[in-house]
Structure formats: structure tokens, C-alpha cells
């Protein structure tokens, strides 16, 4: 980082909006795309604010080395990596502890969603690459990975949607950007199997009174519900466009995972 960043005096402006013009309970602009890679079994591209993230899924497939195989279910392995140029100061290409930690955190957030017991002794590998980072990459990665799993046709109990909540200038805010993440008073990433009401990721850094915590938890759930809807729409559109393509050629109809569709 050659040009020093100026520390913002306030994160919430006098008009009650945030520095990027958002309301305190407003998500950043989101773009979801699925089926973006030719070789992977499933893939998704996510932009959330200026985050640019690709997730790809391979599996269920034979697992190497074999001694890692689980007898009663598939082994889910997520790998979160950042491109060297994805952040202001160049990231070393060597895997960092933070990447190792987030890889496991993301695995734990996705695991309860997958019918791993359908595929004993195999692996399901999720690869996540951060092309550009802008705060909240772990949540955006979970959103991308969840879409890629659905795109790969892996049976899911529910989609996993994720979003951070936090505190800035004493107010509870939704979907923190880079600056808010860095200079805010609290940051709490969450992930849920939204329809089921299961919380699969919850971390918090900063300071919350118990009241603030409860308020934040509720706001997080609201943000997650919106992301969840958007994920489903993305898959529905993809499904329709596939059906159109197929219809042109042969009138055959492809069904995607019922789990994804039924809750409209």
C-alpha cells in the first residue's frame, strides 16, 4: 500500500446514511452467476460490493489420499484462497494461517446443508478464489460456494446464505464494507440454512451489549433472507435458461434439486 489510507472520522453521515450512501440496514449491490467454468462440476461467480469471488465444486469423487475417506459420509473440503492482487498490499502467494482458518470456518458453515451421508467414502471439494476483496469475503464466499454446490447438482437440505452485521458510530449496520469492517466497533459474520432456521456460522469481534447483540442477530437474519431469495432466483433463472436451451433442441426437461425449488 503506497498511498496511506485516510481513517474516516465517521462511518455514518449526518443524514443517517453510510459513507457509500447505503441505509444502515441495506445490503451492497449483489451479482450472482452460476455455471461460469467449463471443467468444474459446478461453479458460481459472486460480486458483493467490490468483492469478486469464484467458487467451484468437484465431486462427489474418489478421494486422495484414501485414508482420509469417511466410511459413513462424504468428506467436505473447502479451500479459501486470495489472489495476490486481491488486496491493497500484495498478499504472499504462500497459504496463510488466515486462509487455513477461513477454509475450515467455511467448511463448517456449509457442512450441515449437504446430504453427505448419500456419498460415503467420497470427497466433495469446494475451491474458492478471491479475485478482489472488499470486506466480508467469508460471507460472500459462503454464498458463492452454496450456489456452486447447487450448480453441481449436489443434494442440499437448504441453501446456505451468509451476511455480516456490525456496529458503527453506535448503530447496528448490515453487510459491512471494507472501511466499516476495519474502523467499526463490531463485526459479526453469520450464515444460516435460512428456511430451516439453523445458524451454521457465528463469529463476533468488537463490543456488543447483550441488547445490541440481539438486535444485530435479528438484522443479520433479515439480510440473510434477502440473499437467500436472490440465490434461489439465480438458480431458477439458470434452470429456466437451461430448459429453454434444451427445449430448442429436444424438448427434454431437466429437473434441478427439488430441495432448492419447493420453498417459493
Amino acid at each position, binding site marked *: *500500500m503506497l498511498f496511506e*489510507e485516510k481513517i474516516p472520522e465517521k462511518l455514518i453521515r449526518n443524514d443517517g446514511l453510510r459513507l457509500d450512501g447505503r441505509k444502515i440496514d441495506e445490503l451492497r449491490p449483489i451479482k450472482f452467476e452460476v455455471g461460469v467454468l467449463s471443467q468444474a462440476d459446478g461453479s458460481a461467480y459472486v460480486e458483493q460490493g467490490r468483492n469478486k469471488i469464484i467458487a467451484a465444486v468437484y465431486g462427489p469423487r474418489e478421494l486422495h489420499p484414501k485414508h482420509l475417506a*469417511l*466410511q*459413513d459420509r462424504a468428506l467436505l473440503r473447502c479451500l479459501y484462497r486470495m489472489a495476490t492482487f486481491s488486496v491493497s498490499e500484495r498478499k504472499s502467494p504462500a497459504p496463510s*494461517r488466515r486462509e*487455513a*482458518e477461513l477454509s*475450515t470456518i467455511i467448511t*463448517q458453515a456449509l*457442512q*450441515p446443508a449437504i446430504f453427505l451421508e448419500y456419498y460415503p467414502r467420497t470427497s466433495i471439494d469446494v475451491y474458492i478464489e478471491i479475485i478482489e476483496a472488499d470486506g466480508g469475503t467469508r460471507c460472500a464466499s459462503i454464498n458463492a460456494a452454496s450456489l456452486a454446490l447447487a450448480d453441481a447438482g449436489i443434494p442440499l437440505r437448504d441453501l446456505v446464505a451468509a451476511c455480516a452485521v456490525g456496529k458503527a458510530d453506535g448503530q447496528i449496520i448490515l453487510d459491512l464494507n471494507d472501511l466499516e469492517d476495519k474502523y467499526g466497533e463490531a463485526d*459479526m459474520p453469520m450464515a*444460516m*440454512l435460512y428456511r430451516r*432456521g*439453523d*445458524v*451454521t*456460522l*457465528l*463469529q*463476533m*469481534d*468488537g*463490543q*456488543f*451489549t*447483550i441488547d445490541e*447483540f*440481539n438486535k444485530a*442477530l435479528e438484522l443479520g*437474519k433479515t439480510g440473510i433472507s434477502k440473499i437467500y431469495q436472490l440465490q434461489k432466483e439465480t438458480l431458477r433463472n439458470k434452470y429456466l435458461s437451461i430448459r429453454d436451451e434444451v427445449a430448442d433442441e429436444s424438448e427434454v426437461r431437466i429437473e434441478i434439486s427439488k430441495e432448492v425449488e419447493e420453498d417459493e
Partner: protein
Amino acid sequence: MSEVYKIVSEIERNQIIAKIAKGKRLDGRSLDEYRTIKIETGIVSKADGSAKVELGDTKVIVGIKFELGAPFPDTPEEGVITLSAELLPMAFPTFEPGPPNFDAIELARVVDRGIRHSDIIDRKQLCIIPSKKVWILFVDIYVLDSDGNLFDASSMATLAALKNLKLPEVKVTGEEVEIIKDSLNPIPLKGKLAAVTIAKVGDYLIVDPDSSEERIMDARITVAFNEEGKICAIQKSGESSFRYQEIQNAITLAKNASVKIFNELSKVM
């Protein structure tokens, strides 16, 4: 995991849950009962600060060494605290030698985040010459005996070791820093921190799980409080999920249990 082991584990899980359903745990504790805590400080004379915590059979040692060094570019007026954890292979049958695995990294991060966000240490007081020279504290957690709930034990031991830490006075001439011999002083800590771990076992929440409970639990949440009762860090971990409502119940349980930890810390701080 072998099939045999899985069956044994399933039986064990059922036994533990059956007991919990009656409000008791295998070692006789109630669901919200914390184990005995024993804290000693100054146990390693070559360390600049040290402490040992026994939480039931769990044993953790923390040692601190200081060095003079440069601050991070983005915090030129703050000292550096580098915290890491080793799960020694002697501590548990399945712990293996080698570089820190996820569990060790997570342990260090959770303790670090609690300390960091509780504002117990003013990192500015570790600064000697802004942008040039600061104290760097290496805080190293060693788990010697792992009978469950390493987060809470390590958090206590780290706090006690920081309390035990002594730094020398320095004389600054231009950019030269000279350390004054035999001038060791403790560093002021603002308040205390209590990290409390709650495990979910089936539909039950239990406080301070031991290793047999951790083996069969579904998920775990650790909540760190400062003395004012504010939450300073949360970490949910484990392969399963919490119901939305359970999160709030866990926070309440943790808040109540934090009282005992603050009491024990008060004896050495």
C-alpha cells in the same frame, strides 16, 4: 473413524445424553456448572511472564517473552502482541506433532480476539518511539493436558500471564533505545475478561464441556465478556448448527458462568 469406534461413540453419546436429560453429567456436575479452576503465576523464571491454569484435569501453560521491534505500518503508535497456541501431542491421544493445525490456530485466534476487543491492554503503552520502536510480546500457549474446554482455560492463563509480565524501563536517546537493568515493572491492565464455552449436545446446552462431552457434542459456542458484561468475542464452532433461539440461550448461560471466572481471576490479578 472405524465402524467399531463409531458404534462405541454412539453408545457413549446416548449415555451422556440420557444423564443430561436428568439434569446431571457423567462427572456429577449440573448442566450449568463450571469445573474447579486453579491459577498459578510466575511459574517459569526464564519467561518474562507466565501462568499455569488447571481447569478440572485440563492443564495449560502460557509464557510471554518480550522483544524490541518495529510496529506494524498501519498502527505506528502501538506495540505488537503475537499470540500462538500449541496443542502438545502429550496432551491428548489424537494430537499429533507438527505445525499448528486448525484447532490450534482457532484456539489462538479466539483468545486473541477476546483480549484484543476487550481493550484490556492499551497497546499504545507498549510504544517507545512511534513508527520505530515498540515492545513486541510473544504470548505462547502450551496445552499440556487436554480434558476439554481449552478456549476458557487458555484465555484465563493468558490473562494471568499478562498480569505476571514485567517489562524493563528504557532510556531513549534520539532513535537509540537503551534498556535499564533490573528495572522491571508490570504493565497496567484495564479490567478482566472471561471466556465461557457452551456445548450443544442433542437438544441440551451444557457449560464447560470436558473432553468426553466435546467428543460427542454437536456444536460449541464460546462467548467472551468483559467486566462490564459486554460481549467482546463470539466463536461458534463444530460441524453442526445451533437453532436461532439456542444462540440466545447460550449467551445467557455464558453470562452467568462468567461470574466464577472473574472471581478466580481476581485472586491473582
